[in-house]
């Protein structure tokens, strides 16, 4: 056997091992980590408050793209009074904060009109918008997902803030685009969690740990 043939065999074998290794450290094609058939809430006994967009009055763009939806959020969370008014892109925003007013988790619903086939492109646009608003922003994953019975498309991102009252904090985010259909418009669900929360350890925990699952479990559009 010639020396080059031996080298070629060794190279093919080495390459195969490395590709196998790469496969073991890459996302599964079915994106199971994105699938959010919504885990059971950790504390289903938590007192909740219902938000129903149909009983709210919006103005401007929000009124134009209004969609009827509802969800329950823990009563201990605070509702942002600015959301749903003026130039706000969100119909509603609720937030869980620590005693020293640090955001632990927040959940917002914004307007969105795209159809399913435009999801990746629209996600990219939203990603660009968000990138300007967070320090050290980085999108870390993207793909199809599910929120309850609704098929959507999501991307997750990380950010890092050095200037908080607690010093440096990691910020993890997840944006889920739920497309509209003939019956109703779509919506963007924006979830954010920070390392100030003990239960959430990384971007993959956003929406599956902490208290956001309570909201996701109850999220419904008035029209399917």
């Amino acid at each position: 056997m010639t020396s080059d043939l031996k080298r070629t065999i060794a190279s093919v074998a080495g390459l195969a091992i490395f590709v196998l290794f790469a496969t073991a450290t890459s996302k599964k094609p079915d994106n199971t980590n994105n699938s959010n058939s919504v885990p059971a809430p950790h504390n289903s006994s938590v007192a909740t408050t219902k938000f129903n967009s149909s009983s709210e009055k919006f103005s401007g763009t929000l009124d134009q793209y209004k969609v009827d939806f509802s969800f329950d959020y823990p009563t201990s969370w605070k509702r942002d009074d600015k959301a749903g008014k003026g130039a706000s892109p969100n119909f509603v925003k609720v937030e869980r904060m620590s005693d020293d007013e640090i955001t632990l988790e927040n959940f917002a619903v914004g307007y969105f009109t795209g159809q399913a086939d435009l999801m990746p492109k629209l996600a990219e646009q939203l990603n660009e918008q968000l990138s300007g608003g967070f320090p050290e922003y980085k999108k870390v994953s993207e793909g199809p997902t599910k929120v309850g019975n609704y098929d959507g498309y999501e991307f997750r991102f990380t950010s890092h803030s050095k200037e908080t009252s607690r010093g440096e904090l990691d910020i993890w985010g997840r944006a889920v685009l739920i497309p509209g259909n003939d019956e109703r418009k779509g919506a963007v669900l924006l979830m954010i969690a920070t390392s100030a929360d003990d239960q959430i350890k990384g971007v993959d925990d956003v929406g599956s740990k902490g208290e956001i699952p309570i909201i996701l479990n109850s999220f419904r559009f008035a029209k399917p």
Partner: protein
Amino acid sequence: MRRICRAAILHVFAPLLLGSVIYLLFRDQNLPISLLFGSTLSVIRPAFFPRIPASILYSLPDALWVYSLTSLMAFIWQNSQSAFKAFWMSSGLLLAFAFELGQLAGVIPGTFDVLDLTGAALAASLALFLNAQSTHLKRILNDIRS
């Protein structure tokens, strides 16, 4: 022989191991490699580790993979005059580019990132440079001995 083993450990196995450790400790817990090790890792995960920038968590393992593969090919094809030498030695970089461009096109799951491409190019260059230096050093030592 001992020198080859030492070089293989330093330039092939160690980078691969370091990349795996980053995946296992800090990255997605639903990756196949993480599932192999079960949930025991969650005990020693993040809270106890210093904060690591996202660029390192998400781009360094890929760069280490390219470095390791390029080093392996450089060892295998050292002193060869074959016409295929260049192809094999750039296979790590070519694969990394193919993965990234596949992600950009939506054919391969994952997120396209220019930083990954840059990291891969730097890693391959570094591996080839260090290998060339080591070969050069070996020649000098051989010349001195002879």
